């Protein structure tokens, strides 16, 4: 697969609004996803908390998680990059 093919298959998952990024449902739970995991479309990838309201961040496409950019518990701005999926 060429680099340009790879690039074309990269799907960025960005913050829909500003909020705090959580990789796991609770402090003692396993992360929703790790780099290398295969994900289904609409699978929950992370949670975003904005002013005490939580929303689940779902996979826009099926594929493989190739990058998790945002740090757990980081405050993200609207449209900040959270993770990257390589379309399957």
């Amino acid at each position, binding site marked *: 697969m060429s680099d340009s093919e790879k690039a074309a298959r990269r799907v960025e998952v960005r913050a829909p609004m500003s909020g705090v990024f959580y990789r796991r449902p*609770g402090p003692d739970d396993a992360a929703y996803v790790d780099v290398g995991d295969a994900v289904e479309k609409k699978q929950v990838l992370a949670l975003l*908390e904005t002013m005490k309201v*939580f929303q689940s961040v779902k996979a826009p496409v099926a594929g493989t998680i190739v990058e998790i950019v945002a740090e757990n518990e980081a405050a993200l701005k609207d449209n900040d990059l959270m993770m990257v999926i390589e379309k399957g």
Partner: protein
Amino acid sequence: MFSKILIANRGEIAHRVIRSCREMGIATVAVYSEADDRSLHLSLADEAVCIGPPISARSYLNMEKMMEVAKETGADAIHPGYGYLAEREAFAALCEAEGITFIGPTAGNLRLAGDKLAAKKTAIYAGVPVISSSDGNVPTVKEAIDICEKMGYPVMIKSAGGGGGRGIRICEDEETLTEEFPIARMEARASFGNDAVYIEKVIPEPRHIEFQVLCDTRKHVTHLGERECTIQRRFQKLIEESPSPFLTPALREEMGEAAMAVLKAADYVNAGTVEFLVDREGAFYFMEINARIQVEHPVTEQTTGMDLIKEQIRMAAGEALGYTFDDLHLKGWAMECRINAEDPDRGFAPCPGTITRYRPPGGFGVRLDTHLYEGYELPVFYDSLVAKLVSHDLTRSGAIRVMKRALEEFRIEPIKTTIPLYLRVMDDPRFLEGDFDTGFIQRFLPEEIEEDD
């Protein structure tokens, strides 16, 4: 009386408590997280201490740190405000162990109020009717499904450790239950540090009416009348008023007696609220005890003339109430709109951001409790409540006219707020007649977009 009080909270309620302390000649200690280092409550208090990082769990919910600051600053009492540590039994117990007065109920009261099933049993013991629910905490989705199959849908998932509407989700069927259950637990943990939830049957077209009760340490109990809190969205109260347009004097007396009976049976001390659901026929059901000062307390203050924060402080210091409901000089009608940084046109999506234009309302009959100022940046970490606008007049229609005028004056830009929604409500014929149930606000909203889609 106390010489120095630490206010273990932020935002408008921190202002509210500091102001009463100042009027009482009591020194104040404000606390703040790193995200709140430009908050106004720091400058209102005599001292201000940073208690940790932005995330609430590491700052405003950090009991040990809060206690450490109380001791270092020589505070002899802590006022918890609402939310955060206000209803944490462990924190009240810690205060007691450390010899610092917790301005609120006892640890035992908080355990009872926090265990909604135990609170229900107390209500039953006191002869007050209750709504059917699960037997306490429901730990897994599977158990939730089993319970709801027996109980029948619709049901609501409620935070066993919480209140104030947070962590509550309504479920029409098994599919929504499966989806909402984990989110309800997550919100419960984030807001209250406790992910236990329980399930309750839904009463159709109810009104939410609650009674403010005060209990001194000498077993004297009085109520201060009711608050009508029916205008809600997803169990978050939006508009509250006192008195309720629905209650007859006879029903008011009956419900007031019931509220006091529950708290007497609970051996309760300090300020507490007993919440009821009331159906169209006027049958009422005990819902829960709110073991704290509530967000909507100002409407009671306006109609009774009592400063509830001062009453809380007096009672915590062991002073006697010395009056009953019949002694109060009730006056007029009060209404509160909770101004939230939310967009009603987009499913009440939260709207953090920097306030570039701020013009507060004023004038006759207007009270504004807020921590906003021009240039303030609303953090993403905390509640979306940015102001409580309260109107007071001799009549309900007068209070509505004052509210409408004040809402029109209020400018908070560029963020979206609930102000435009309230302006529409103030013109609504059904609202003007006082004819509504908890589903009222739905018809003002576009089809709701699920937050997690």
